[in-house]
């Protein structure tokens, strides 16, 4: 959460907003934001999904305990889901990968080029040419 707070200005530069969502009450969110050193740095909204409707609708609810899975959903400016990644129980997210995904999606849409694995900003995209099939 603090890791996303640390890249927040870069996300803003990419016209990207963040909504953090858990099934905690808005009151828990308030105290969390006030006393947790990592949450204190958070500039984006902490959404309370108290009735679990959001987590259920996005199919990211742990029905055993009513808590959301650790899932990152990216929604494009038209309101369509373009990426959904659920992380394991044991491991937290990678904020640089989140940044790379959004940069890669935007780069792909702007250039029409393919965005290969391990692409990072500054690297070229791949033209989609039928004559290259089998040659890359």
């Amino acid at each position, binding site marked *: 959460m603090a890791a996303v707070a640390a890249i927040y200005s870069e996300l803003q530069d*990419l016209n990207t*907003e963040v909504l953090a969502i*858990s099934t905690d009450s808005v009151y828990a969110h308030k105290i969390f934001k006030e006393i947790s050193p990592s949450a204190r740095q958070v500039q984006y909204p902490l959404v309370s999904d108290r009735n679990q409707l959001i987590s259920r609708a996005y199919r990211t609810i742990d029905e055993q305990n009513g*808590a959301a899975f650790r899932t990152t*959903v990216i*929604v494009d400016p038209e309101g369509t889901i373009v990426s959904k990644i659920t992380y394991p129980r044991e491991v937290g997210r990678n904020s640089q990968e989140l940044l790379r995904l959004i940069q890669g999606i935007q780069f792909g849409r702007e250039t029409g080029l393919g965005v290969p694995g391990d692409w990072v900003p500054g690297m070229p995209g791949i033209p989609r040419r039928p004559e290259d099939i089998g040659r890359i």
Partner: protein
Amino acid sequence: MSNDLTVEDFANEPLPFTATRDDPAPLFTAEAIVNGDIQQVNLEDYRGSWVVLFFYASDFTFV
């Protein structure tokens, strides 16, 4: 879930909504803490921006 399930158990079923790639992001309005205040957040208000929905299990965990 049993580990005995095979792809045949699922492959011929209609695919339910799974809120995944290329699906419309279901709209919602919910209370949120924004800069310390309680405010309503409506996903539809974010049209025109990219949005990251950052689901996490619980406050006061390592998230």
